């Protein structure tokens, strides 16, 4: 049952434009926006010692343009289920696979795996291209340098986390508009709020997805509002367990 459900969800994902066009477009946009700023960074010789100490040739790969693809994948994650609720197709899906947890697990497998592959490809591509640009400025690091591989893997995996959060939120809210708003609120709005609140919200700030991504990819140490890589990974797990757990309960209990 599970194998068939996964095959079915994979076909569904690749047979619509959101996967064939939107995801590659978002990846391309993200890549360009992530890499271009490095070209305008000053060289090592033009930097003060203080600035050089703060300059993060790894973390900066995933701090700007990468968020575009994080958001896009989060929204695509919601769409993979809200589009079915919107059209009523979810009923057809449940007729073929009455065990709804199997449906959710299959969707999570497919959406998560697709986002992971896209994420790892993109994060490695950004890293390698950025370091190529930075090598001319004597700022480049290699994959073997401390934290570099962890950041590349973390950023790629974070895309899967984003997709799965989207899937869970979409399953919980069922409406495309509500789920999209919730995902944008979590990924953008939450950070704006904790940022505006300043130091008082540091504890909460560590739990916003933007800070989690930063924690996963930064090689310049943790701060009050920045989780360590391990803490960030654990926070991802908590998000997934809580949201996918709620989604599992909801999908079983509610009428389709």
């Amino acid at each position: 049952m599970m194998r068939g459900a996964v095959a079915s969800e994979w076909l569904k994902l690749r047979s619509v434009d959101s996967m064939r066009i939107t995801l590659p477009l978002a990846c391309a946009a993200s890549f360009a926006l992530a890499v271009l700023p490095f070209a305008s960074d000053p060289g090592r010789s033009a930097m003060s010692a203080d600035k050089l100490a703060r300059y993060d040739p790894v973390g900066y790969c995933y701090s700007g343009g990468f968020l575009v693809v994080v958001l896009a994948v989060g929204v695509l994650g919601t769409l993979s289920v809200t589009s079915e609720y919107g059209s009523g197709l979810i009923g057809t899906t449940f007729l073929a696979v009455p065990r709804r947890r199997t449906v959710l697990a299959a969707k999570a497998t497919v959406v998560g795996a697709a986002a992971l592959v896209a994420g790892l490809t993109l994060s490695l591509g950004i890293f390698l291209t950025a370091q190529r640009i930075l090598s001319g400025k004597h700022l480049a690091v290699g994959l073997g340098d401390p934290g570099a591989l962890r950041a590349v893997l973390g950023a790629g995996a974070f895309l899967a986390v984003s997709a799965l959060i989207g899937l869970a939120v979409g399953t919980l809210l069922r409406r495309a508009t509500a789920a999209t708003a919730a995902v944008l609120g979590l990924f953008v709005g939450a950070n704006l709020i904790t940022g505006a609140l300043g130091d008082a919200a540091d504890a909460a700030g560590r739990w916003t997805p933007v800070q989690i991504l930063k924690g996963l990819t930064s090689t310049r140490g943790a701060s009050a509002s920045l989780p360590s890589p391990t803490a960030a990974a654990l926070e991802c797990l908590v998000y997934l367990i809580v949201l996918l757990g709620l989604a599992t309960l909801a999908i079983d209990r509610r009428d389709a």
Partner: protein
Amino acid sequence: MGRPFVIHPPKLGRGRCPPRPTTVIYPWMDSSERRHLRGQTRGLAGGGSLDGMIETHELTKRYGSATAVDRLSVVIRPGRVTGFLGPNGSGKSTTLRMVLGLSRPTGGHALVGGRPYAALRHPLHEVGALLDPGAVHAGRTARDHLRAIALAAGISAARVDAVLELTGLTTAGRRRAGGFSLGMRQRLGIAAALLGDPPVLVLDEPINGLDPEGIQWIRTLVRGMAAEGRTVLVSSHLMAEMEQTADHLVVIGRGRLIADTGMAEFVRRASRSDVLVRAADPARLASVLVRAGGDVSSEADGALAVRGLAPRRIGDLAAEADVAVHELAVRGATLEQAYFEATEHAVEYRASEGGGR
């Protein structure tokens, strides 16, 4: 609740299946015993497809204080087309969704082939359903839509092409379903229902949006499916079409069972047949007929609709009264009239009962 439920032998009436004794399955029997007894009721050689019966037992669905389906107990049997009728909002779709495991009953239960839908091992091979022709992703091709369903159910791509051909969608299969007309979406929905070649078919309003050819195609299809010994449950608002397609009727109103009877009997019981009379002096004739014990009402064009008097007696009375008769026609009851009578009655019944609950 020690009430046994009864599995009747299939009544095919087409000589495909020898008569068998009624089998009774008691709640205290264990599953292997039940299976054994059910096996005896299977009629088709090799197919075993006759175990596909739909049963609802005290099936109830409430949304807050509103009761959509109210203790509905029916058995939909194989080998015939069962029409499922009821006014809008009477609970037809809710009932079908509970049968198919999409909505959770507030009370009671529904079984397909003796089991709840969720417990079916290969659901699409046991039940095919068309619920909502709009339930497609607009950006996906019809063939991919069917292939996704087929993959989930372990059905081959060859079967997908077969149902596309069966429903006349072979060339349209490469196009996006978003551009389909309602009629084509209905065909696509029926193609999906047929994917698993199921012994039970549940079609909710399958002929909406179909052209006359499509309607005839559906009629032939469902009648053929029933003739093969399958269970076919079709809901529709279109009475004239239902009259031609269904053998048996289940009628509900406000979520309650109004009738569970053969088509002919349902129409006959409505006893709406009357005699249409056109006469030179309808007012005079009407008073004569009423005095003779007739029940007379005026039609819009001045004709009289007479009940309770035979045509011959009406003619004699008119001759005695010296009124020229221009037309005298016996009108048989239609399903539509019978349906209105039955559902109207239910509404009155509900209204007078409502205060006491």
